[in-house]
């Protein structure tokens, strides 16, 4: 065989073989990876809307998904909003739990972030950041307290402590929350957030 033909034959063979191999691996792990993602979202919903027995996606658009969390009697306990915004380095994806009337935040969870370890990455830490979001009033847009208040009790009903040294990351989360709260109030007015079975979009 000429060299030229051998080069083509070898590269084709190597390419085909690894292609086939990868297709098999992809097929074998696909379901598990999807399941992991779904599990993570479900866990986040239960953590931000406590008592949730079943949850359902009731609305979706770019950078925003709304889930309704229901108890065992099918009563709506609250909404879990999955939203994303730009942080210091990359997208931050959060899950925000609010009551059905959209007046109070239950709690906040961070699903994905690539903030600076030790600084911005503390947005995932309950002690330094997430605890301030619990049971906050969200009738009006929330705001950051800077420099941070020394105790949780000193904060206003819709005030959040800034993480010292990570103002940008704190602001990124705050903006994402405020933007998605404004959007979800609009959606509620437009009647797109009904949790009744027939209205599911």
């Amino acid at each position: 065989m000429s060299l030229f033909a051998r080069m083509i034959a070898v590269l084709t063979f190597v390419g085909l073989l690894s292609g086939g191999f990868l297709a098999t691996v992809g097929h074998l792990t696909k379901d598990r990876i999807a399941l992991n993602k779904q599990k993570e979202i479900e866990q986040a919903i239960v953590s931000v809307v406590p008592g949730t027995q079943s949850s359902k996606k009731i609305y979706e658009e770019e950078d925003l998904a709304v889930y309704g969390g229901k108890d065992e009697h099918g009563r709506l306990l609250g909404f879990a909003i999955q939203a994303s915004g730009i942080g210091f380095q990359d997208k931050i994806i959060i899950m925000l739990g609010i009551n059905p009337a959209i007046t109070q935040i239950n709690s906040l969870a961070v699903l994905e972030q690539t903030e600076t370890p030790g600084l911005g990455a503390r947005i995932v830490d309950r002690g330094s950041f997430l605890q301030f979001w619990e049971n906050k009033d969200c009738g009006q847009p929330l705001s950051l307290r800077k420099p941070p208040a020394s105790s949780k009790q000193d904060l206003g009903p819709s005030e959040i402590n800034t993480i010292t040294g990570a103002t940008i990351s704190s602001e990124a989360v705050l903006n994402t929350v405020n933007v998605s709260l404004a959007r979800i109030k609009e959606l509620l007015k437009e009647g797109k957030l009904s949790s009744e079975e027939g209205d599911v979009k």
Partner: protein
Amino acid sequence: MSNRTISQEYLKGLWEENPVFRQLLGMCPTLAVTNAMINGLAMGLATSFVLIFSSLVVSSIKKLIPSQVRIASYIVIIASFVTIADRFLAAFFPPLSKNLGPYVPLIVVNCIILGRQEAFSSKNTVGRSLTDAVGMSTGFIFALLVLSAIREILGMGTFFGLPVMGVWFKPWVIMVLPAGAFITLGILLGLFLFIEHKTKVRS
């Protein structure tokens, strides 16, 4: 062809030709993922998997590959194993896969792997290539663990996530940031050169 004994073939990767400290290869993962020991270990294991299997495949089909297309063939083989490692981590260890982020796919361009294929597996027997790959992997894991242990202990006060420093300890945030990686690596390289110099002078 290499004329070392099999045990020398393995041991050279640990010290004499350590991929990180002596050959200065694979600096991107070395610097980027060593902010915590678990990340360093996972990266080390993923790279080892790719290195060992690529060496195995390359050394067994080395006679079939025309030298004009060898690099392209090596890259395809390496990339396949990297993709397998990446999918495996995402399926079975989702938190780790998240921490390592884009660095797992980047193993494809880790020069340690391509370097070993070109410098060793393409010229040696399957057994020797395998020993060499295992040795280099051990050396790489060793280097990542040393680096990440120093950075994690000083930067977070923990060892594999377990607190080891007392309450008095204030973490040096810089150690988990990129600058801490460069500082630690620089000091370690200097230290290893110093040790080598001393032993050479003595003998």
